[in-house]
Protein backbone atom coordinates (compact mmCIF):
# COMPACT_ATOMS: atom_id res chain seq x y z
CA UNK A 1 0.00 0.00 0.00
CA UNK A 2 2.96 2.26 0.66
CA UNK A 3 4.13 1.61 -2.92
CA UNK A 4 0.68 2.41 -4.30
CA UNK A 5 0.62 5.62 -2.27
CA UNK A 6 4.01 6.64 -3.65
CA UNK A 7 2.77 5.83 -7.16
CA UNK A 8 -0.29 7.99 -6.51
CA UNK A 9 1.95 10.82 -5.38
CA UNK A 10 3.78 10.58 -8.70
CA UNK A 11 0.66 10.25 -10.86
CA UNK A 12 -1.02 13.15 -9.03
CA UNK A 13 1.02 15.37 -11.34
CA UNK A 14 -1.19 14.21 -14.21
CA UNK A 15 -4.32 14.02 -12.06
CA UNK A 16 -4.56 10.22 -11.78
CA UNK A 17 -5.49 8.32 -8.64
CA UNK A 18 -5.01 4.57 -8.34
CA UNK A 19 -7.27 2.78 -5.88
CA UNK A 20 -7.00 -1.02 -5.81
CA UNK A 21 -8.40 -2.44 -2.55
CA UNK A 22 -9.70 -5.57 -4.37
CA UNK A 23 -6.15 -6.83 -4.85
CA UNK A 24 -5.76 -7.09 -1.08
CA UNK A 25 -8.80 -9.36 -0.85
CA UNK A 26 -6.70 -12.20 -2.27
CA UNK A 27 -6.22 -13.93 1.04
CA UNK A 28 -5.06 -17.59 1.25
CA UNK A 29 -8.07 -19.88 1.59
CA UNK A 30 -6.09 -22.05 4.00
CA UNK A 31 -6.40 -19.28 6.60
CA UNK A 32 -8.97 -20.01 9.25
CA UNK A 33 -12.12 -17.85 9.17
CA UNK A 34 -11.18 -16.00 12.35
CA UNK A 35 -7.70 -15.19 11.06
CA UNK A 36 -9.06 -14.16 7.67
CA UNK A 37 -11.52 -11.72 9.28
CA UNK A 38 -8.77 -10.24 11.45
CA UNK A 39 -6.46 -9.81 8.47
CA UNK A 40 -9.26 -8.23 6.40
CA UNK A 41 -9.97 -5.78 9.23
CA UNK A 42 -6.28 -4.95 9.46
CA UNK A 43 -6.10 -4.46 5.66
CA UNK A 44 -9.23 -2.26 5.84
CA UNK A 45 -7.56 -0.06 8.45
CA UNK A 46 -4.57 0.34 6.16
CA UNK A 47 -6.77 1.04 3.11
CA UNK A 48 -8.64 3.64 5.13
CA UNK A 49 -5.43 5.29 6.34
CA UNK A 50 -3.65 5.36 2.99
CA UNK A 51 -6.68 6.61 1.05
CA UNK A 52 -8.20 9.01 3.62
CA UNK A 53 -11.45 7.04 3.78
CA UNK A 54 -13.76 6.54 6.79
CA UNK A 55 -12.61 3.42 8.70
CA UNK A 56 -16.10 2.00 9.21
CA UNK A 57 -16.91 2.26 5.50
CA UNK A 58 -13.68 0.45 4.56
CA UNK A 59 -14.24 -2.39 7.05
CA UNK A 60 -17.81 -2.84 5.85
CA UNK A 61 -17.17 -3.01 2.11
CA UNK A 62 -13.98 -5.05 2.42
CA UNK A 63 -15.64 -7.70 4.60
CA UNK A 64 -18.76 -7.70 2.46
CA UNK A 65 -16.82 -8.34 -0.75
CA UNK A 66 -14.57 -10.84 1.01
CA UNK A 67 -17.57 -12.92 2.09
CA UNK A 68 -19.21 -12.75 -1.33
CA UNK A 69 -16.19 -13.55 -3.47
CA UNK A 70 -13.73 -15.28 -1.14
CA UNK A 71 -13.92 -18.65 -2.94
CA UNK A 72 -13.59 -17.12 -6.40
CA UNK A 73 -10.96 -14.47 -5.74
CA UNK A 74 -8.69 -16.51 -3.45
CA UNK A 75 -5.29 -17.11 -5.01
CA UNK A 76 -5.33 -20.80 -4.07
CA UNK A 77 -8.42 -21.42 -6.14
CA UNK A 78 -7.53 -23.45 -9.22
CA UNK A 79 -9.84 -21.48 -11.53
CA UNK A 80 -8.64 -19.78 -14.68
CA UNK A 81 -6.24 -17.05 -13.54
CA UNK A 82 -7.55 -14.54 -16.07
CA UNK A 83 -11.11 -15.03 -14.81
CA UNK A 84 -9.93 -14.37 -11.26
CA UNK A 85 -8.14 -11.22 -12.35
CA UNK A 86 -11.26 -10.03 -14.18
CA UNK A 87 -13.34 -10.73 -11.08
CA UNK A 88 -10.90 -8.71 -8.96
CA UNK A 89 -11.26 -5.84 -11.45
CA UNK A 90 -15.07 -6.03 -11.26
CA UNK A 91 -14.95 -6.05 -7.44
CA UNK A 92 -12.64 -3.04 -7.54
CA UNK A 93 -14.99 -1.12 -9.83
CA UNK A 94 -17.88 -1.97 -7.49
CA UNK A 95 -15.95 -0.64 -4.46
CA UNK A 96 -15.16 2.53 -6.41
CA UNK A 97 -18.86 2.96 -7.26
CA UNK A 98 -19.92 2.36 -3.62
CA UNK A 99 -17.54 5.08 -2.43
CA UNK A 100 -18.75 7.41 -5.18
CA UNK A 101 -22.40 6.86 -4.27
CA UNK A 102 -21.72 7.23 -0.54
CA UNK A 103 -19.83 10.46 -1.24
CA UNK A 104 -22.71 11.79 -3.38
CA UNK A 105 -25.12 11.39 -0.46
CA UNK A 106 -22.73 13.48 1.71
CA UNK A 107 -23.93 11.57 4.79
CA UNK A 108 -20.41 11.01 6.08
CA UNK A 109 -17.36 13.25 6.03
CA UNK A 110 -16.52 12.70 2.38
CA UNK A 111 -16.72 15.11 -0.50
CA UNK A 112 -18.48 14.26 -3.72
CA UNK A 113 -16.51 14.45 -6.93
CA UNK A 114 -17.25 14.66 -10.64
CA UNK A 115 -18.01 11.65 -12.80
CA UNK A 116 -15.27 12.31 -15.38
CA UNK A 117 -12.62 12.01 -12.66
CA UNK A 118 -14.29 8.80 -11.46
CA UNK A 119 -14.19 7.27 -14.97
CA UNK A 120 -10.52 8.15 -15.52
CA UNK A 121 -9.50 6.79 -12.09
CA UNK A 122 -11.55 3.61 -12.52
CA UNK A 123 -9.96 2.92 -15.93
CA UNK A 124 -6.42 3.53 -14.59
CA UNK A 125 -7.01 1.36 -11.49
CA UNK A 126 -8.56 -1.47 -13.54
CA UNK A 127 -5.59 -1.46 -15.92
CA UNK A 128 -3.23 -1.60 -12.95
CA UNK A 129 -5.13 -4.58 -11.50
CA UNK A 130 -4.95 -6.40 -14.85
CA UNK A 131 -1.18 -5.82 -14.90
CA UNK A 132 -0.25 -6.58 -11.30
CA UNK A 133 -2.76 -9.25 -10.24
CA UNK A 134 -0.75 -12.17 -11.66
CA UNK A 135 2.68 -11.13 -10.24
CA UNK A 136 1.02 -10.32 -6.91
CA UNK A 137 -0.54 -13.79 -6.84
CA UNK A 138 2.86 -15.36 -7.58
CA UNK A 139 4.42 -13.33 -4.77
CA UNK A 140 1.70 -14.53 -2.38
CA UNK A 141 2.33 -18.13 -3.49
CA UNK A 142 6.04 -17.76 -2.80
CA UNK A 143 5.44 -16.29 0.66
CA UNK A 144 2.85 -18.94 1.49
CA UNK A 145 5.06 -21.85 0.36
CA UNK A 146 7.95 -20.51 2.48
CA UNK A 147 5.70 -20.07 5.50
CA UNK A 148 4.32 -23.60 5.08
CA UNK A 149 7.87 -25.01 4.68
CA UNK A 150 9.10 -23.37 7.87
CA UNK A 151 5.91 -24.49 9.63
CA UNK A 152 6.53 -28.12 8.56
CA UNK A 153 10.17 -27.89 9.72
CA UNK A 154 9.12 -26.66 13.15
CA UNK A 155 6.59 -29.48 13.43
CA UNK A 156 9.24 -32.06 12.41
CA UNK A 157 11.75 -30.82 14.97
CA UNK A 158 9.10 -30.94 17.66
Amino acid at each position, binding site marked *: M*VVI*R*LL*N*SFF*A*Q*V*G*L*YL*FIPAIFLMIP*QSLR*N*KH*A*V*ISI*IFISLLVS*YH*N*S*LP*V*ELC*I*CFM*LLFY*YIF*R*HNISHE*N*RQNNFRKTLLAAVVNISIFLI*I*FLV*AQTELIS*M*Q*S*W*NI*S*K*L*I*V*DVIASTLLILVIAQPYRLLLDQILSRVLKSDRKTKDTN
Partner: protein
Amino acid sequence: MAHNIQRPKRKSLLLWGFLLVFWFLLPLSWKVTTKSSFEEFHAPIWEASTRIQDLTHFWGHVSDSKKTLIEKGRDHQRILSDAKHQISSIDHLKVELQRLKELKSQIQKLETTLELEAKTKFTPTISRISLRNLSGWNQSFRISKGQRDFLQVGNGVISFCGIVGRLEQVYETSSQIQLISNKSFRMVAHLKGDNRPVTFQGNGVLPGGQGQGILYDIPADVIIPKGNDIQVVSSNLSGTYPKGLHIGIISELTPSVDGVFKVGKVLLSPQLSLLSEVTILKDSYAK
Protein backbone atom coordinates in the same frame (compact mmCIF):
# COMPACT_ATOMS: atom_id res chain seq x y z
CA MET B 1 -13.24 -32.11 -9.16
CA ALA B 2 -14.42 -31.60 -5.64
CA HIS B 3 -13.17 -28.49 -3.85
CA ASN B 4 -12.64 -28.22 -0.17
CA ILE B 5 -14.89 -25.17 0.25
CA GLN B 6 -15.34 -23.67 3.69
CA ARG B 7 -18.65 -22.01 4.35
CA PRO B 8 -18.61 -18.69 6.25
CA LYS B 9 -19.10 -19.59 9.89
CA ARG B 10 -21.34 -17.79 12.34
CA LYS B 11 -18.36 -17.25 14.61
CA SER B 12 -16.50 -15.12 12.06
CA LEU B 13 -19.61 -13.04 11.40
CA LEU B 14 -19.98 -12.53 15.13
CA LEU B 15 -16.33 -11.52 15.32
CA TRP B 16 -16.90 -9.02 12.52
CA GLY B 17 -19.86 -7.52 14.35
CA PHE B 18 -18.00 -7.45 17.65
CA LEU B 19 -15.02 -5.67 16.13
CA LEU B 20 -17.27 -3.09 14.43
CA VAL B 21 -19.08 -2.35 17.70
CA PHE B 22 -15.73 -2.18 19.50
CA TRP B 23 -14.46 0.33 16.93
CA PHE B 24 -17.55 2.55 17.31
CA LEU B 25 -17.23 2.49 21.10
CA LEU B 26 -13.55 3.37 21.15
CA PRO B 27 -12.99 6.89 22.49
CA LEU B 28 -12.22 9.50 19.80
CA SER B 29 -9.04 10.58 21.61
CA TRP B 30 -7.68 7.03 21.40
CA LYS B 31 -8.44 6.85 17.65
CA VAL B 32 -6.77 10.23 17.06
CA THR B 33 -3.68 9.23 19.08
CA THR B 34 -3.34 5.94 17.19
CA LYS B 35 -3.70 7.70 13.84
CA SER B 36 -1.22 10.39 14.78
CA SER B 37 1.40 7.84 15.95
CA PHE B 38 0.87 5.90 12.74
CA GLU B 39 1.46 9.13 10.77
CA GLU B 40 4.68 9.79 12.71
CA PHE B 41 5.78 6.24 11.99
CA HIS B 42 5.19 6.68 8.25
CA ALA B 43 6.64 10.19 7.88
CA PRO B 44 10.27 9.04 7.28
CA ILE B 45 9.10 6.84 4.38
CA TRP B 46 7.57 9.79 2.52
CA GLU B 47 10.61 11.93 3.30
CA ALA B 48 12.95 9.18 2.05
CA SER B 49 10.99 8.94 -1.20
CA THR B 50 11.74 12.59 -2.02
CA ARG B 51 15.45 12.03 -1.24
CA ILE B 52 15.44 9.00 -3.57
CA GLN B 53 13.91 11.21 -6.28
CA ASP B 54 16.79 13.67 -5.80
CA LEU B 55 19.29 10.86 -6.04
CA THR B 56 17.70 9.50 -9.24
CA HIS B 57 17.74 13.02 -10.63
CA PHE B 58 21.46 13.28 -9.80
CA TRP B 59 22.34 9.87 -11.28
CA GLY B 60 20.21 10.64 -14.31
CA HIS B 61 22.34 13.73 -15.02
CA VAL B 62 25.69 12.05 -14.39
CA SER B 63 25.49 10.50 -17.86
CA ASP B 64 24.60 13.81 -19.56
CA SER B 65 26.24 14.46 -22.94
CA LYS B 66 29.04 17.00 -23.38
CA LYS B 67 26.66 19.35 -25.19
CA THR B 68 24.25 19.36 -22.24
CA LEU B 69 27.15 19.92 -19.81
CA ILE B 70 28.37 22.92 -21.88
CA GLU B 71 24.83 24.36 -21.88
CA LYS B 72 24.53 23.87 -18.10
CA GLY B 73 27.98 25.47 -17.61
CA ARG B 74 26.88 28.46 -19.68
CA ASP B 75 23.72 28.84 -17.56
CA HIS B 76 25.84 28.56 -14.42
CA GLN B 77 28.17 31.31 -15.66
CA ARG B 78 25.17 33.55 -16.38
CA ILE B 79 23.89 33.05 -12.82
CA LEU B 80 27.37 33.79 -11.44
CA SER B 81 27.70 37.01 -13.45
CA ASP B 82 24.22 38.05 -12.32
CA ALA B 83 25.25 37.39 -8.70
CA LYS B 84 28.41 39.48 -9.22
CA HIS B 85 26.29 42.31 -10.62
CA GLN B 86 24.04 42.13 -7.55
CA ILE B 87 27.08 42.23 -5.25
CA SER B 88 28.43 45.29 -7.07
CA SER B 89 25.16 47.14 -6.49
CA ILE B 90 25.17 46.28 -2.77
CA ASP B 91 25.79 49.90 -1.70
CA HIS B 92 22.73 51.09 -3.60
CA LEU B 93 20.68 48.25 -2.06
CA LYS B 94 21.87 49.19 1.44
CA VAL B 95 20.64 52.76 0.93
CA GLU B 96 17.32 51.39 -0.34
CA LEU B 97 17.05 49.08 2.69
CA GLN B 98 17.68 52.00 5.04
CA ARG B 99 14.96 54.02 3.30
CA LEU B 100 12.48 51.14 3.61
CA LYS B 101 13.31 50.71 7.30
CA GLU B 102 12.65 54.41 7.91
CA LEU B 103 9.33 54.16 6.03
CA LYS B 104 8.39 51.12 8.11
CA SER B 105 9.11 52.90 11.39
CA GLN B 106 7.09 55.90 10.19
CA ILE B 107 4.12 53.61 9.41
CA GLN B 108 4.40 52.02 12.85
CA LYS B 109 4.48 55.47 14.51
CA LEU B 110 1.40 56.55 12.54
CA GLU B 111 -0.41 53.34 13.48
CA THR B 112 0.31 53.96 17.17
CA THR B 113 -0.77 57.61 17.00
CA LEU B 114 -3.97 56.79 15.15
CA GLU B 115 -4.54 53.72 17.40
CA LEU B 116 -4.87 51.50 14.34
CA GLU B 117 -4.69 47.77 14.71
CA ALA B 118 -1.45 46.56 13.11
CA LYS B 119 -1.83 44.38 10.04
CA THR B 120 -1.21 40.65 10.37
CA LYS B 121 2.41 39.89 9.64
CA PHE B 122 3.65 36.62 8.32
CA THR B 123 6.91 34.75 8.69
CA PRO B 124 7.52 32.52 5.68
CA THR B 125 8.85 28.96 5.97
CA ILE B 126 9.73 27.03 2.84
CA SER B 127 9.11 23.30 2.75
CA ARG B 128 9.28 20.45 0.26
CA ILE B 129 6.24 18.40 -0.70
CA SER B 130 6.86 14.78 0.20
CA LEU B 131 3.54 13.27 -0.84
CA ARG B 132 0.61 14.27 -3.04
CA ASN B 133 -2.91 12.91 -2.73
CA LEU B 134 -5.35 13.92 -5.46
CA SER B 135 -8.16 11.43 -5.05
CA GLY B 136 -11.67 12.40 -6.01
CA TRP B 137 -12.81 12.50 -2.37
CA ASN B 138 -9.82 14.23 -0.79
CA GLN B 139 -6.99 16.44 -2.00
CA SER B 140 -4.01 17.01 0.26
CA PHE B 141 -0.24 17.40 0.24
CA ARG B 142 2.22 16.25 2.88
CA ILE B 143 5.21 18.42 3.67
CA SER B 144 8.40 17.65 5.52
CA LYS B 145 8.08 20.30 8.25
CA GLY B 146 5.98 20.26 11.38
CA GLN B 147 5.84 21.28 15.03
CA ARG B 148 9.64 21.41 15.20
CA ASP B 149 9.49 24.36 12.78
CA PHE B 150 6.71 26.00 14.85
CA LEU B 151 3.99 25.32 12.28
CA GLN B 152 0.42 25.43 13.50
CA VAL B 153 -2.89 24.09 12.27
CA GLY B 154 -4.57 26.73 10.11
CA ASN B 155 -1.39 28.36 8.76
CA GLY B 156 -1.80 29.50 5.16
CA VAL B 157 0.21 27.83 2.39
CA ILE B 158 1.19 29.63 -0.81
CA SER B 159 3.46 29.12 -3.81
CA PHE B 160 4.45 30.90 -7.02
CA CYS B 161 1.04 30.01 -8.47
CA GLY B 162 -0.88 31.64 -5.61
CA ILE B 163 -2.84 30.11 -2.74
CA VAL B 164 -2.20 26.39 -2.24
CA GLY B 165 -4.25 25.67 0.88
CA ARG B 166 -3.92 25.61 4.65
CA LEU B 167 -2.34 23.31 7.23
CA GLU B 168 -4.89 20.72 8.29
CA GLN B 169 -2.78 18.55 10.59
CA VAL B 170 0.64 19.23 12.10
CA TYR B 171 2.83 16.42 13.41
CA GLU B 172 6.32 16.49 14.91
CA THR B 173 8.29 16.51 11.65
CA SER B 174 5.60 16.62 8.99
CA SER B 175 2.29 18.31 8.23
CA GLN B 176 -0.71 17.83 6.00
CA ILE B 177 -1.99 20.60 3.75
CA GLN B 178 -5.65 20.75 2.88
CA LEU B 179 -5.61 21.83 -0.76
CA ILE B 180 -7.61 24.79 -2.02
CA SER B 181 -9.54 22.41 -4.32
CA ASN B 182 -10.82 20.40 -1.33
CA LYS B 183 -14.57 20.80 -0.82
CA SER B 184 -14.15 21.56 2.87
CA PHE B 185 -11.84 24.51 2.06
CA ARG B 186 -13.55 27.89 2.31
CA MET B 187 -12.07 31.39 2.40
CA VAL B 188 -12.89 35.03 1.85
CA ALA B 189 -11.79 36.33 -1.55
CA HIS B 190 -12.11 39.33 -3.87
CA LEU B 191 -12.57 39.75 -7.57
CA LYS B 192 -9.56 41.69 -8.83
CA GLY B 193 -10.35 45.40 -8.85
CA ASP B 194 -13.41 44.98 -6.62
CA ASN B 195 -13.05 45.30 -2.85
CA ARG B 196 -16.34 43.64 -1.94
CA PRO B 197 -15.81 40.26 -0.24
CA VAL B 198 -16.98 37.03 -1.87
CA THR B 199 -16.83 33.42 -0.63
CA PHE B 200 -14.59 30.85 -2.28
CA GLN B 201 -15.07 27.11 -1.81
CA GLY B 202 -13.04 24.26 -3.31
CA ASN B 203 -14.84 21.93 -5.71
CA GLY B 204 -12.52 18.97 -6.39
CA VAL B 205 -10.19 18.21 -9.26
CA LEU B 206 -10.72 17.57 -12.96
CA PRO B 207 -9.24 14.46 -14.67
CA GLY B 208 -6.08 16.30 -15.78
CA GLY B 209 -5.32 17.30 -12.19
CA GLN B 210 -6.55 20.89 -12.50
CA GLY B 211 -8.41 22.03 -9.42
CA GLN B 212 -11.66 23.92 -9.44
CA GLY B 213 -13.72 25.93 -6.99
CA ILE B 214 -16.98 27.82 -6.67
CA LEU B 215 -17.35 31.50 -5.91
CA TYR B 216 -20.45 32.49 -3.96
CA ASP B 217 -21.98 35.81 -2.92
CA ILE B 218 -20.78 37.72 -6.01
CA PRO B 219 -22.66 41.06 -6.20
CA ALA B 220 -25.34 41.07 -8.90
CA ASP B 221 -23.83 44.09 -10.69
CA VAL B 222 -20.63 42.19 -11.60
CA ILE B 223 -20.64 41.29 -15.29
CA ILE B 224 -18.00 39.34 -17.20
CA PRO B 225 -18.05 40.02 -20.96
CA LYS B 226 -18.12 36.88 -23.15
CA GLY B 227 -14.66 35.49 -23.85
CA ASN B 228 -13.12 37.41 -20.94
CA ASP B 229 -12.27 36.30 -17.44
CA ILE B 230 -11.65 37.89 -14.04
CA GLN B 231 -8.93 36.97 -11.62
CA VAL B 232 -10.00 35.86 -8.13
CA VAL B 233 -7.58 37.04 -5.44
CA SER B 234 -7.19 36.50 -1.71
CA SER B 235 -8.45 38.86 0.95
CA ASN B 236 -6.77 39.84 4.20
CA LEU B 237 -10.11 39.70 6.02
CA SER B 238 -9.51 36.12 7.15
CA GLY B 239 -6.05 36.91 8.50
CA THR B 240 -4.59 33.70 7.06
CA TYR B 241 -3.31 35.17 3.79
CA PRO B 242 -2.06 38.55 2.61
CA LYS B 243 -4.29 40.47 0.23
CA GLY B 244 -4.08 40.07 -3.55
CA LEU B 245 -2.67 36.56 -3.99
CA HIS B 246 -3.88 34.64 -7.03
CA ILE B 247 -6.58 32.00 -6.41
CA GLY B 248 -7.89 31.28 -9.89
CA ILE B 249 -9.86 32.68 -12.80
CA ILE B 250 -13.59 32.94 -13.32
CA SER B 251 -15.11 33.28 -16.77
CA GLU B 252 -18.85 32.79 -16.33
CA LEU B 253 -21.40 33.90 -13.76
CA THR B 254 -24.87 32.55 -13.11
CA PRO B 255 -27.55 33.93 -10.77
CA SER B 256 -27.71 32.19 -7.37
CA VAL B 257 -30.82 30.35 -6.17
CA ASP B 258 -32.09 33.36 -4.17
CA GLY B 259 -31.41 35.68 -7.13
CA VAL B 260 -29.68 38.30 -4.94
CA PHE B 261 -26.12 37.25 -5.73
CA LYS B 262 -24.25 35.49 -8.51
CA VAL B 263 -22.27 32.25 -8.50
CA GLY B 264 -19.38 31.15 -10.74
CA LYS B 265 -16.93 28.32 -11.30
CA VAL B 266 -13.29 29.13 -10.59
CA LEU B 267 -10.49 27.37 -12.45
CA LEU B 268 -7.41 27.03 -10.26
CA SER B 269 -3.84 27.11 -11.50
CA PRO B 270 -2.88 23.94 -13.45
CA GLN B 271 0.57 24.17 -11.81
CA LEU B 272 -0.93 23.28 -8.43
CA SER B 273 -0.55 19.51 -8.90
CA LEU B 274 3.04 19.91 -10.13
CA LEU B 275 4.38 21.83 -7.14
CA SER B 276 7.45 20.51 -5.36
CA GLU B 277 7.92 23.32 -2.82
CA VAL B 278 5.53 25.55 -0.91
CA THR B 279 5.76 28.47 1.50
CA ILE B 280 3.95 28.29 4.81
CA LEU B 281 2.84 31.61 6.28
CA LYS B 282 3.28 31.56 10.03
CA ASP B 283 1.57 34.20 12.06
CA SER B 284 4.33 36.35 13.58
CA TYR B 285 2.22 37.21 16.62
CA ALA B 286 1.34 33.60 17.43
CA LYS B 287 3.09 32.17 20.47
